[in-house]
């Protein structure tokens, strides 16, 4: 058993990578394949390092590093620790140490699903990501994502609506919410699952960190689902990593005229599975594990609705969400308005920013 979850060697390697961060951006582009850099042994990495870094490497104080981590509320798990998620060992360049805010056990779930996608997503993409996250969580499947704006955040939000833990893999320091807009989400994920990073507290984010993060997202999951990605999106690297690891890659189709659908539609064209609901993902998961498919716990069926309310709900579900689209005359409008109030009160529909109603689920 390694003390406090991480051994000196692994901590020293992590410190070396942080010292080399700036340099790695350059190396990264030169070798073009992620594994080639982060997979190098310490000695080769040292060859890239400036003189000062080498000295610091020699004088490395593992105790101080552990103290810093504990001070930041971080749990450590290194490659030599039993806490280290087995799935990560399949990577050619597994991270030396995982820095976890939250529960490290959440990382070792046998059937996690990654949901990633565009930051500048459309409302369609956000809705789908959220529905997928919720559906999987209701089936007790943990959702892994990157806590980025857009699809990632929506997936986390959805997952938090179900009972399962959710895991956010950050590019840099795990205790710092990045981007800062997702502060509340960061805290919620840490409380319900885990926020994890291969870099220690305080480490700044470099460009390579984001791609390196994607390999961890892919490796932690059995199935990787891409919701909206442009043709050159970083989300596609996650799909590449997943494919390299032999995991199932799936994508949500989009309108061919939408820019953020080009990447996902392209994935489907080249053989990724097409998913349109959490059920589809659960089928893929069953296929991958060979275990019987989990049944998503459905939200309790709504109490019986009066026929009028039922009709109204159906109309809203069909996209007729404005008062004028639901009522033909002034008298009817009052009934409709009252019915909408009733449905909203029961949590079946919700009033949006512009005053339209839409299904709540």
């Amino acid at each position, binding site marked *: 058993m390694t003390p406090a979850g991480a051994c000196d060697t692994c901590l020293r390697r992590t410190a070396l990578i942080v010292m080399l961060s700036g340099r790695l951006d350059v190396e990264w582009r030169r070798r073009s394949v992620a594994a080639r850099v982060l997979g190098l042994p310490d000695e080769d990495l040292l060859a890239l390092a400036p003189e000062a870094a080498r000295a610091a490497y020699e004088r490395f104080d593992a105790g101080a590093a552990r103290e810093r981590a504990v001070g930041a509320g971080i749990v450590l798990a290194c490659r030599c620790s039993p806490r280290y998620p087995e799935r990560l060992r399949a990577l050619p360049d597994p991270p030396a140490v995982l820095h976890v805010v939250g529960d490290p056990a959440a990382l070792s779930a046998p059937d996690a699903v990654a949901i990633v996608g565009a930051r500048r997503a459309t409302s369609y993409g956000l809705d789908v990501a959220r529905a997928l996250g919720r559906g999987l969580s209701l089936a007790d499947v943990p959702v892994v994502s990157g806590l980025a*704006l*857009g699809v990632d955040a929506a997936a986390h939000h959805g997952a938090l609506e179900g009972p399962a833990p959710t895991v956010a893999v950050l590019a840099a320091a795990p205790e710092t919410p990045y981007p800062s807009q997702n502060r509340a989400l960061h805290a919620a994920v840490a409380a319900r699952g885990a926020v994890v990073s291969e870099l220690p507290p305080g480490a700044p984010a470099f460009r390579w960190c984001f791609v390196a993060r994607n390999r961890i997202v892919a490796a932690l999951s059995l199935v990787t689902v891409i919701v909206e990605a442009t043709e050159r999106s970083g989300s596609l690297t996650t799909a590449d990593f997943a494919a390299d690891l032999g995991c199932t890659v799936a994508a949500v189709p989009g309108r061919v005229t939408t820019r953020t659908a080009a990447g996902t539609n392209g994935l489907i064209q080249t053989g990724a599975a097409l998913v349109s609901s959490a059920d589809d993902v659960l089928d893929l998961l069953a296929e991958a594990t060979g275990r019987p498919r989990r049944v998503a716990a459905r939200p309790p069926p709504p109490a019986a609705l009066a026929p009028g309310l039922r009709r109204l709900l159906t109309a809203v579900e069909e996209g*007729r969400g*404005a008062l004028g689209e639901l009522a*033909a005359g002034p008298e009817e*409008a009052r009934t409709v308005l009252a019915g909408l*109030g009733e449905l909203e009160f029961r949590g079946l529909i*919700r009033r949006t920013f512009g*005053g339209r109603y839409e299904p709540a689920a």
Partner: protein
Amino acid sequence: MIARVSTFAVDGVTSRRVWVEADIRQGLPAFTVVGLADKSVREARERVRAALVNSGFEFPAKRITVNLAPADLRKIGPGFDLPLAIALLVASGQLDADALDATAIIGELSLTGELRATRGTLAIAEGARRHGLRRLLVPRGVAAEAALVPELDVLGAADLEEAVAFLRGAAEPPEPHELAPPEPEVPAPLDLADVRGHNGLIPALEVAAAGGHNLYLHGPPGTGKTMLARRLPSILPPLTAGEAIEVTRIQSVGGLHHGGGLVSVRPFRAPHHTISASGLVGGGSQPTPGEATLAHHGVLFLDELSEFARPSLEALRQPLEDGHVTIVRGQKVMAFPTRFMLVAASNPCPCGMGDDDCSCSAADLARHHRRLSGPLLDRIDVLLAVGRPVAGALRDEQAPPSSAVRERVVAARERQAARLEPHGLACNAQMSARLLREHAAATPSAMRLLYELHDRHRLSARGHGRVLRVARTLADLDESASVGPEHITLAAGLRLEAAALASAA
């Protein structure tokens, strides 16, 4: 010899008395105007000279000094032409000074001596009355407007010669009402019956009109938001006598009045979204009323709300809150009335394509929403989504005429007035939080529902008040003394506060 003529200068939407003093003495011929006169007033010298000579009077070839008092008020505009000419006639002995007894004079002169209408006649006539003057000499075109003020003899003259004849008592001025210019052709009033496919929205418009609630129309372009907004004045109650006077005075000062009788239709102002803050609430070195004041007792319609500049919208805060706007320019402080009903409209997203064809990213939408959810929305009680009308509805159904809706609105307003008159208010939208507690008596079950809504929909305290306010109006429309749960439910369906925006955005 010296002469003094009483006249008035328009100051904001009221008037201030101004004395025109003329002094004629021996010396090199000269004509000087002093007393903080604007360029347009100094130009009066040339018009007066020509008008006098062309009307058969003598222009004294002596040293003429004209003073406009009080000297601290900047005098602007051509309205001082006639008083100046009359002062010269008195000072040069061509007209008896007694002819000016208790008389105010206003009007612009042409070179031929003809009189032209000037702005703000009603405000000036009221000023004359206030100062105890008995006669007012004005150009013919605005005589009917001046005659709106009781107990004031209005002399409506066509030209300088006639004006002098009236002052001398040599001719009898015609009855001012006969001088009213023909009513300008009023386009057929817009009626709700012309609107197809939006019948379902009529109750919402009715509530907004009945309670004077500010209204926000939200929907894709081309769905009829503007069409609905333009028909709102047709369902608002008719102007009361007092309101009509106020509106006429403001329109006259703003140059929108044709000089006839009282304005009878509620104003509808729809400024373009490029308007500046001072254009909207009034301003300028000599503050003039802005669109908010021109819409007093009527409707101010802001189409494409998100396109308005932030400072312009911020400037509307005080007018909305207080019903008047205070403008400070230099050493001048001026208040303009601004009790209008705000109707705003905007697209659901920046691209304006609507739900299905929208290509905006979540970030674009969030930015759009942020622009809209500024301080202005705090004062809007009713939010209405306007969808695309269904094709069949466009063809078939007939909307009720405005008059039918208006009847209900008027009845509801009367109930409100009975309740709110002691507080000097006219409609529910003007109730403060304290009055709301006092007057929006809700049944226990309605209160329970409201509190549940409060918890479930995360209604803010302000949103809570807005729902109750609108519910009170719904109860008034139903002729119900207290607010019932059904009113709360309906009001909640029109509330502005939406569930938190997609939190992922």
